[in-house]
């Protein structure tokens, strides 16, 4: 019995438009992209992902026309319920309104087709109330909510048994800055996303903590137990670092940097200047980070307050990286991008990632070149 019976589908018909015409994203630029001759890709990508879902007795609710209805019809799923009628042309506000209509309808899953910008709009409304899964069609897809390919969508949605959910980061790239070749990202939100049972495939018989929440709790307990008195611990964004705070019983910011000293919160949602002030001259500190996003960034995506100056003050050897086994199985390589290539190299070719209570994995850092 599949976990998802009623699915809300929203397609951003303009997603991916900017990519082929070199616009590095389409936010606010759909007209210009169309004028440059861009072809809408998202409706076809959505139909490709949806086709294997036809004939499985799923109920679809969607927005009319290009925002979902047409893609479902193309996929051979004609009897969807339109619960929202977008304006023409549709905008981000329509994506958000459609999601609100899905929540009112009581959907089990919100399926969207787009890129990071669409993911952000969906996350704004859906939050962690209902699981979210992305059909990849955008220019930039740094968020972790996207299925690997259209085929994976059906595998995840049709999986038998109770849903296996994982936290997924929605990462928002500043497109204005990106177009000026300044890569700036913000960890925008965290949603819940279903994970395919087969993602660990051949190593399936090698037991690992498959339950993300339990794995996170084990990591949190281990780091909390390993915290030394008098040492400042800076907890980065994400729910895995959040598990450490939870274990300590302190209220941490989900998306920002917090500081813990002797088991107490001594600073929340800190900026670079706050971090430098707390570190003072030579206070011993540890930087505790999660593996962020589908691309496996440890530094450089959503961690901009930890500037090279902050990292140098702490010492690159005092980095503690956390990641659940499930997350690492989906992340072939780790990346660090502090903005200072010399500092990036100081982390070495491998990082050790804590994966449970007393357990860790060694992961390769950087581009996919032989060891």
């Amino acid at each position: 019995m599949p976990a998802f019976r009623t699915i809300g589908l929203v397609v951003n018909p303009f997603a991916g438009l900017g990519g082929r015409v070199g616009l590095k994203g389409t936010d606010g630029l759909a007209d210009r992209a169309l004028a440059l001759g861009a072809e809408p890709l998202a409706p076809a990508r959505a139909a490709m992902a949806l086709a294997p879902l036809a004939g499985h007795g799923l109920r679809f609710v969607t927005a009319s026309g290009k925002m979902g209805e047409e893609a479902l019809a193309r996929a051979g799923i004609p009897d969807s319920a339109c619960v929202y009628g977008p304006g023409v042309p549709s905008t981000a506000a329509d994506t958000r309104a459609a999601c609100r209509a899905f929540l009112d309808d009581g959907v089990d899953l919100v399926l969207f087709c787009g890129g990071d910008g669409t993911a952000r709009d969906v996350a704004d409304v859906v939050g962690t109330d209902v699981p979210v899964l992305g059909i990849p069609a955008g220019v930039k897809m740094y968020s972790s909510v996207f299925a690997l390919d259209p085929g994976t969508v059906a595998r995840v949605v049709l999986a038998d048994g109770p849903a296996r959910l994982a936290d997924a980061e929605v990462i928002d790239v500043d497109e204005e800055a990106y177009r000026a070749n300044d890569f700036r990202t913000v960890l925008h939100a965290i949603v819940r996303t279903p994970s395919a049972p087969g993602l660990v495939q051949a190593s399936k018989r090698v037991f690992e903590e498959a339950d993300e929440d339990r794995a996170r709790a084990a990591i949190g307990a281990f780091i909390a137990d390993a915290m030394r008195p008098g040492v400042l611990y800076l907890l980065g964004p994400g729910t895995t670092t959040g598990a450490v705070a939870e274990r300590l019983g302190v209220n941490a910011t989900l998306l920002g940097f917090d500081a813990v000293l002797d088991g107490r919160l001594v600073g929340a949602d800190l900026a670079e200047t706050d971090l430098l002030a707390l570190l003072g001259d030579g206070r011993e500190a540890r930087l505790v980070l999660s593996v962020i996003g589908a691309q496996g960034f440890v530094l450089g995506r959503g961690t901009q307050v930890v500037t090279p100056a902050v990292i140098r003050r702490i010492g690159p050897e005092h980095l503690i990286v956390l990641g659940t086994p499930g997350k690492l199985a989906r992340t072939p390589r780790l990346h660090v991008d502090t903005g200072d290539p010399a500092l990036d190299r100081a982390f070495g070719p491998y990082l050790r990632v804590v994966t449970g209570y007393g357990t860790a994995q060694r992961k390769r850092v950087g581009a996919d070149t032989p060891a």
Partner: protein
Amino acid sequence: MPQAYYNREAGIERLATETGAGQWGSALAFATSHFEMDCTVYMVRASYEQKPYRKMMMQVWGADCHSSPSTLTASGRAMLEKDPDTTGSLGIAISEAVEDAATHANTNYALGSVLNHVCLHQSVIGLEAREQLASVDDYPDVVIACVGGGSNFAGTAFPFAGDKLTGKHPDVDIIGVEPAACPTLTKGLYAYDYGDEAGLTPMLMMYTLGHDFVPPAIHAGGLRYHGDSPIVSKLVKDGVARAVSLYQNEVFEAAQTFARTEGIIPAPEAAHAIRTAIDVALECRKTGEAKTILFNNSGHGHFDLASYEAYYAGNLPDYDYPEELIRDALSRLPKVA
């Protein structure tokens, strides 16, 4: 064979034992069938699932093989209650086998590694290797074997360690190779600890990662042991032997090289020794030294092909051991006098 024989001589009718990857369980199953004894084997769950044909092999020789932790023993049930998804470990399987022997009539426990008599029985390997080399007027400069509980290493290395200690061959380099996921000799503490998870065995002075440490489910299941033979530990402590640790992927890379050059597909445990032998040979190529390298290819990998499959699919995590954090976590525990 000797363990089954001496137990039979003492009138024992049934043996209980643990096994990791399954070699020891298969060997004891054969030995007990030879001496018409019953045999019950507790096989570490991770390996039981990874290598189902090992279980068949033990059945062929008439042994009962159970996935450990099992519901047959109190220690097994306690472990399952604590963590129903546990991978099991040699430490847990030993607890079950010891408990089985203690609660059944005319049953003895047979240990597959760690203890002195097991290491002694295994040393036939090293003795024979030394004789074979002597027959071609050679003696190894380097002796390499993988280490889990220590019996395979001991069996290979002890005769050479004896030569080193008596001054006959003071320069022989003896290397034990262990997984980075379970680095007992390279990162463990030299202390008294239990040989099993539940604390049913006497305490042993050895390198240990703590008897409750459940190592990650690496494919070299035979090397997933928290402790080490006391004699092996002492030899490493005294610098007679040394230890290195390796990650899974580098081990399988060497296994593939060996299989392609020699035509033998090695077990992941044995491939630890192979990788180190290759590394030593490459070092010799660099320095221009000629060395005789002896390593023990202790098992074939025909039951481990699923792990080769995982390697080729890029699905083998390089399990690691976060020793600084573990040290910090342990330093907060209350000190017991």
